[in-house]
Every structure is written in structure tokens, then in C-alpha cells.
């Protein structure tokens, strides 16, 4: 052991020397960072007021951070950010973690900030865990846009929400009402009984049904398919058998609506019982083509990203600061107004039917 010690000591010294070298190079750049961050904080304080007429800066650089790489839905969403930035003469790079954890996202945020982009667009894995890293980014003059799943409100300037709870509830009721002539029994095929978003949507649906327009529609049952294909299939079967007068079913879950459509497509009730819900066009295409489903709804993920990219560019150019009531032009999507807590809502659900379903691939 004794002979090992001198060599270990030498190695430690060498390591220390290396760390010291790193430290020296760091000192220089730490100062550098300070000056640049103070400069940017100056500019941001001077331009604290939004200037709607400000030119969109050329060559904007953004980094968009998905929850996880390799998820087709998210890739489609973030391709929208690419589209927006390209359109505005800038560029976006998508940097995501390989696992959907907050700590991997923090590493990515930190690395992204070091590259001094104009803005970061993030779909957060955890609202609070990523907040300190995002706040540090903001301190260095990087604008932060949340999208899809929000981060802590004080850690970002704006949040692009694909849709609100209210809109999902209202749009879905209108979709089924339209198909059944606003008359008759309807049922809901949900996911799990304690799914927060599902229950919030169902609550809005029940309130919406109280409106005079829907007075002849009656909600007879809320069934739970647990977001399991087989269970949802059986629950749909049960609904059809238990309620012979059933006119329509709303299934606001992608798993549920696909399973329900599969059951209906083979059932004598095909075309008689109407089905709507939240579904992916790729999963629902064949049921729309074979006449099982007239229409269903969802937001377009690419538009979520596109709007977030536009918002990031508007922020980085000083057109908006994230205050409630500020307006900005979001390219092909038109004008948007920032709501309470910096929230920007993409809009009502997009309805997919035989007319437009082939325009979407997700």
C-alpha cells in the first residue's frame, strides 16, 4: 500500500492542477458573463414596457426542450417551433432528455443557457424542479416560454396552453350535440375515475349541458375505461347494451375513443350511435373513412409549438413582455392576447372529419 501513496498523491496533484487550470479559465469567463448579463438586464429594464411595433429581430436563436426525446407527439409539437423560427428568419434547435425526468431537463436547460440563446421553449417535466434553472436563464437575459405542460409561473414569461378545460368541455358537447340534432341520451367514456383532467372536463360538460341549447340532451352514464384498450372496449359494449336509446358517446381520451370506435365499427349500431372524443388522426383515420365516426377533436400539436415559437420571438424582440392584455401577431394563426398569469391559449379544439383528416399526420 505504501508504494501506492506517492503515485496517488502525484495524481491528485495533477488533478488539482487541472481543476486550477479550469478555475483560471473560468475566472475570465465568469467576468465575461457578468458583464453580458448586466448588459442584458439593463436592456430588459429599459425595455420593460412592451413595444408592439418593435421589429422581430433577425437571426433569433432558440432552444426548445421537450419532455423526452423519441415521443412522436412531442416531436410533432416541437417541429412547430422550428417552423415559426424559420419563418421569422431565425433558427431553433430541439434538445431533449432521453428520460422524462426533471433532473435531465435541468442539465439540458443549463447547457442551453450557456449557449446564450434568445429564448428557451420548454414543456416541463416538473413545474418546480426546473424553476431555479429557468430563473437563472431569465437573469441572463434568456426569455422563457412554457408550453404544453406548464412550469412555475414565476419561472417563465408566458405559457402556451393547447386548450383550456372550459373549451374542451364546451367543444366536445357541441360536437356530439351537432351530430345527434341536440336531442337524446348521451354517455361519457372516460379514462380512470380519478384522472384530474378528465374529471375537470366532465364537470364542464355537465355544466354546458345545462344551457338551453342542450336542454333535450341527457347524460345517462359516465363509464371508465381506465385508459386501457380492452377495458374501454368492454365499457363501450356495456353502454350500448344497457342504454338502447343511446344516441351519442363522448370519449375525451385517445385510448378510449379509439377503442369505442373499434367496437362501434363492428356493431349493428354503427352510424346510429354517434361518437366523438379526443383522438389522434392517425388512430382514428380508418373509422372516419368507414363511416363509424363523423368527427372527433383534438388540438394540433404542431400549432402549439408554432404559437410558442412566435411568442418566443415576440418576447425576444420586445413586442411583448408577458403581461396580461398584451397582443401579438402569431403568423399563420393570427393575433393572440396574453391572458391572466401569462397564459396564451391556442384556441378551441380542432375538429377532424373526412374533409380534413388527411391533412394531419400524428
Amino acid at each position, binding site marked *: *500500500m505504501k*508504494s*501506492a*501513496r506517492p*503515485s*496517488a498523491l502525484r*495524481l*491528485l496533484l*495533477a*488533478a488539482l492542477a*487541472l*481543476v486550477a487550470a*479550469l*478555475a483560471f*479559465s*473560468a*475566472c475570465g*469567463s*465568469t467576468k465575461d*458573463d457578468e458583464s453580458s448579463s448586466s448588459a442584458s438586464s439593463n436592456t430588459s429594464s429599459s425595455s420593460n414596457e412592451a413595444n408592439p411595433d418593435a421589429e422581430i429581430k433577425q437571426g433569433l436563436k432558440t432552444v426548445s426542450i421537450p419532455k423526452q*426525446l423519441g415521443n412522436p407527439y412531442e416531436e410533432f409539437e416541437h417541429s412547430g417551433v422550428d417552423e415559426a423560427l424559420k419563418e421569422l428568419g431565425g433558427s431553433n*434547435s430541439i*434538445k*431533449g*432528455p*432521453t*428520460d422524462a*425526468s*426533471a*433532473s*435531465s431537463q*435541468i*442539465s*439540458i436547460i*443549463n*447547457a442551453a443557457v*450557456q*449557449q446564450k440563446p434568445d429564448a428557451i421553449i420548454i414543456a416541463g417535466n*416538473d*413545474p*418546480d*424542479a426546473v*424553476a*431555479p434553472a429557468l430563473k437563472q436563464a431569465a437573469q441572463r437575459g434568456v426569455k422563457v416560454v412554457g408550453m404544453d405542460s406548464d412550469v412555475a409561473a414565476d419561472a417563465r414569461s408566458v405559457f402556451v396552453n393547447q386548450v383550456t378545460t372550459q373549451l374542451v368541455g364546451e367543444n366536445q358537447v357541441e360536437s356530439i350535440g351537432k351530430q345527434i340534432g341536440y336531442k337524446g341520451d348521451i354517455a361519457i367514456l372516460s379514462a380512470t375515475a380519478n384522472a384530474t383532467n378528465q374529471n375537470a372536463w366532465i364537470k364542464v360538460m355537465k355544466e354546458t349541458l345545462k344551457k338551453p341549447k342542450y336542454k333535450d340532451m341527457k347524460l345517462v352514464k359516465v363509464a371508465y375505461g381506465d385508459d386501457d384498450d380492452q377495458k374501454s372496449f368492454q365499457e363501450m359494449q356495456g353502454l350500448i347494451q344497457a342504454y338502447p336509446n343511446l344516441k351519442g358517446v363522448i370519449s375525451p381520451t385517445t385510448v378510449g375513443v379509439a377503442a369505442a370506435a373499434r367496437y362501434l365499427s363492428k356493431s349493428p349500431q354503427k352510424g346510429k350511435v354517434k361518437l366523438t372524443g379526443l383522438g389522434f388522426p392517425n388512430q382514428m383515420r380508418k373509422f372516419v373513412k368507414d363511416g363509424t365516426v363523423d368527427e372527433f377533436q383534438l388540438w394540433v400539436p404542431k400549432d402549439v409549438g408554432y404559437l410558442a415559437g412566435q411568442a418566443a420571438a415576440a418576447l425576444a424582440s420586445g413586442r411583448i413582455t408577458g403581461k396580461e392584455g398584451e397582443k401579438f401577431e402569431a403568423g399563420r394563426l393570427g393575433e393572440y392576447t396574453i391572458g391572466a398569469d401569462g397564459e396564451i391559449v391556442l384556441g378551441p379544439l380542432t375538429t377532424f372529419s373526412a374533409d380534413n383528416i388527411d391533412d394531419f399526420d400524428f
Partner: protein
Amino acid sequence: MPADTTATPPTTGAPARDAEPTATGGARLRAVLGRWEALLIGLLVLTAVFGQGISSEFLTGDSFTTGSLDLSEVALMALALTLVIVAAEIDLSVASVLALSSALMAELWNGGMPLELIMPICLAAGAACGAFNGLLVTRFGLPSLAVTIGTLALFRGLALVVIGDESVTDFPANYTDLAFGNFAGTFVPNTMVLFAILAVAFGVLLHATPFGRSIYAIGANEEAAYFTGLRVKRVKLILFTLSGLVAALAGIVITLRNSTAAANVGQGFELTAITAVLLGGVSIFGGRGTIAGVILALLLLGGIQKALLLSQSISSYWIQIVTGALLVGSVLGPNIARRVSEARRRGTSHTPEEGSTT
């Protein structure tokens, strides 16, 4: 532990005497070891050049701050794991103990307990997890690989039971700032100061105490160590307990650093920690390796991760690929080196004349 060492003074000398006949072999090993660590320094320099080529932001205090912060927990766990692996055992459950500690911390915090009381409880729970591993290995004679694969799932499952699928985020800011912040205005994160303190402690324990020497003796040849009177089972039990304890500490650190507790925290950290240990020149078969080497390996891993993260074009998948390749390489490298040197030795001993004439 002091009782252990004073009660059996002859044993502390025994491995040294035992080692004497193989002193030349030991020296050769050590020479290889020296070369291994030199190789790591070489790789570090290479990473520095490569990283700076990828982004001019690589050699900055920022990179060190964020890069080392990312590796805080892995680095802490690697220290205790070094001792376990030197003793020719393995502990795959460390990341799950980390998660359990994090979940426990969240649940007790939700229950209204003060953090000052929660932290010792978490550490004790971690130590208990480690001791559980240790007891299964030493008392039932089970291979640690199998035991800790089992407890990897078991402890992670317990974490899920404790906290469910919720996540707790309202930890007090003075603690989270401490875990997230830097030391006294420098670019060195507080977590790295903690790591440095523990690294010195584990370095002294492994390299400068009779207990440390007994770890090497057990790792090199368990049976011989046993017959020279070393309390093999006891040493191993202590090492597993230490590993659990440090993993629980890492759990506290990651919870405060991210100000979030969730059951899925730190998934896969055990592989990175083991990679760091093996890359640091610790033999997977036990008996050799240094804390200094592991520290170098952590620097190297952190450097590579940072360089890949800073790249505009390289996908994050490459971090996994490179980590995996380094793990394989660090097991394969010394193995090949040993075979080559054995072959050479055999060659020279068979044909001494030929060797002298050429």
C-alpha cells in the same frame, strides 16, 4: 469499528505480511494502476480539447458549476460504492435507496415534521436498507449482484408506496438554495464541497486505516483474508451499510437540489455511479483501485456529458451510448492489459536466451 481493529491487532499486520511474497506482482499491478490514472488524465485533457472544440463555453466556471451539479448524487454514491467494489462486492440498489430516501423525506415533510429531524431519519432508513443488503449477502451467503438487483426493484417499489405518483415540491427555500447554490461566491457548488469532504473521509478510510487495508485484503482474496483472521462478514456489512447511508444522503441532496421529491428520481444513476468507479480503475473483481482514480473518472464523465450537452447537433442519446461504452471499456481495458502482460511474461520466461540475444 475501533473495537474491531484494537481487538485483533495481528490481523492488521497479516495482509501486509501476506502480501510480501507477491510484492513484485503488487508493484506491477500498481504500475498498471499508475498508467490507468495517467490514461484518465490524458483522456481528461482530450475531453477538454474536444469539448472546447464543440463549444467555446466548455472550459468555463459555468460548465463546472452546472456539470458538477448534475453529477452531485452520482459522485457521492460512487465514493461508498468504490469501497464496496474494492471488497469485490457490488451494490446496484443505490439509486433506489436514493429514491426511497427522497420519497420518505417528502412524506414526512408533508406530515409536518421539521426538516432537521427528517434528514437523520432518512439517513437512518438508508443505512437500514444498506444493512439489509449486507445481511442478505453476509449471513445468507447470497451473491450481492442478485441481492441488490432484487432490492433495486424492492426499494424503488417502496418509494412508490411511500409517495405514490404524486410529487412534493414545497421544501423550504433556505435548504433548497443551499443544495442548489454555490460555495461562498465561487463557481463551486455546495454539493461539491460536501463531495470533497466525503471524498477526503473515504480516501483516508480506504487508503490510510487498517479498516481500509482489510477491504483490499478481502477484495483480493476473501478466503485468505478470512484465514488471516479478518472479520470479513463484518467489514462487508459495514460497507453495504455505508453505501446505503451515502445513497440516502444523495437522496436528500437531489430532493433539495431539485426542490422536488418523486418516486422516479435518479433512475439509472446506479449505472453511472458504477461506471465512474470502474472507469476510475477499481477492479470489478475487487482488490484494487483508488478514490483518486474515481474522482478523475467523475471529472471525465462530467466533462464528456457537458461537452455532449453543449453540442448543437449531437443528440442526448449519445450520453447514454458513451457512458455505456466507457463502462464496457473500463472493464475490458485492464482485462486486455493483464492478458497482454501475462502473455509477455510467459513469453520471456520460456525463452530467456532468445530474449537476451535479441
